[in-house]
Structure formats: C-alpha cells, structure tokens
C-alpha cells in the first residue's frame, strides 16, 4: 500500500475545507444573531417580524 501519504492528505484537505466552511457559516450566523438581538433591544417593546 504505497502512497498512503497522498491519500491521507487528500481526505484531510477535504475535511479541512468542509470544516472551514461550516465554521465560517457558524461565525456568520452568530454575527447575524447578535445584530438581531441589538435590533430587538432598540425596539420600543415586544418583538417584531
């Protein structure tokens, strides 16, 4: 079983790319959630939408 190194790196890179994207999604979701919280707190009372 030669070339296991290449196999390892290929699958690792796929995982890194997918994990990186999921991480970026979660960061953006968190940012938008905090914006929503800020907007809600500026409302006179109750929630909107």
């Amino acid at each position: 079983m030669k070339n296991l190194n290449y196999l390892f790196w290929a699958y690792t890179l796929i995982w890194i790319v997918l994990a990186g994207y999921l991480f970026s999604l979660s960061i953006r979701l968190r940012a938008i959630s905090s914006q929503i919280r800020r907007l809600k707190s500026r409302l006179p009372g109750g929630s909107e939408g």
Partner: protein
Amino acid sequence: MHRGLELALFFLVAALMILSLYCVFQVVPNEVTMGAVQRIFYFHVPSAWVAFLAFFVVFVSSMLYLATRRLLWDVVANAAAELGVLFCGIVLFTGPIWARPVWGTWWTWEARLTTTLVLEMVFLAYLVLRTQAENRAQAARLSAVVGIVGFLDVPIIYYSVQIWRGHHPIVFKSSGGQGLEPIMLKTFMLCMTTFTLLFLLLLAMRIRLGLLQEWVAELKEQDSIPGA
C-alpha cells in the same frame, strides 16, 4: 427548511459520511494499477458532481429571480454559487494530489481538471460581481444574468477543452475489466448520495443565513426611516 428537518438531514448526512468512509477505506479492494491512492476518486468525483449540481441550481434560481423578482431566489443562487465554488475547490485540490503519484506531476492540463478550473473562475467572478454592485437589486439582477450565461457556457467550455486536450483516467475500468467492480460501484454510488445530501444540507443552512441577512437589512432600512 424546517429546523427539525434540517437536524434530521444533518444526522443522516453524518451517518452516511461515516458509512462512506468505512466503505472507502475498509470495504473496497485496492485498484489494480493505481494502488491505494485511487480511493481519492470516491470523494473527488462526487465533489465534481456536486459542483455541477450547485451551478445548475444557480442557473435555475437566476432564471426564477429574473422571472419573479423574489429575493428568495437570489439568496438561493448566491448560496448555491458559494457551495459550487467550494466543491470546485475540493476537486481542484484532490485532483493534483491524485495526479502526483499516478502521473508524476502535480498539475496536468487535461480536459476535466482544466474545465473545473475555468468553471471555478467563472463562478468566482460571479461572487466578485455581487460584491461590486452598487445596490442589492442590481447585485441580484446582474449576477442572475451572469449565472444564466455562465451555466450555458459550462458544456461549451467542457467540449472546447476536450477538443484541446485528451486524457483523463478511465476510472470505470479495472485492468482489462468491463467496468467498476460491483462493490466499487456501490461504494461510489453511496458517496455520490452522501455528497448530494451534504450539498442539500449546506445549501439549506446557507439559505437560512442569507434570508436572515436579508431580513436584518430590511429591518435596518425601515429603522432608519424617521417615524417608521
């Protein structure tokens, strides 16, 4: 997509991914000519399929946007384009890693890899266009046109690069055999299913993010109107 459905899809994808990895590393036999490194194929080709599927989604939602002017379709197109670029990137990383031990060189200008590279550039330009537009409506409209033209170009680009070049590993033949061995074919189809569902999951998540961003932008706009 309903949160419960999204969660269910997440667990399904996770389970399928574990099963796929198990099959790729424990179940399928070594390929005769290329050895262990050929197993990259089981994730490389589904990534290419997903990239193509994503660009098809861009095409359809671009047309739907121009027809209905509902921002939802623009959000879908944007999400799909991002994912298309992502999975194209995976193809472009794993291709050279596969090529190096098999053909002795990192990059080869062979038909499918070159096509993927050009496609990646087309849809990267699509994403750049969105950031450079002057306002939201213009971004949606102009990128919809590019999304439609870009996708129409896909088969033409593929065909032209094929004419220009030639060889791609004929992965569906083991040495002298008639096609993939059944177990390899089953594993391959499993990986295709896993990746398709993964794409749908990521698309749902990205659309949800996009819709939230639209909603917030709309609220901010209303907020800035005095007396609103």
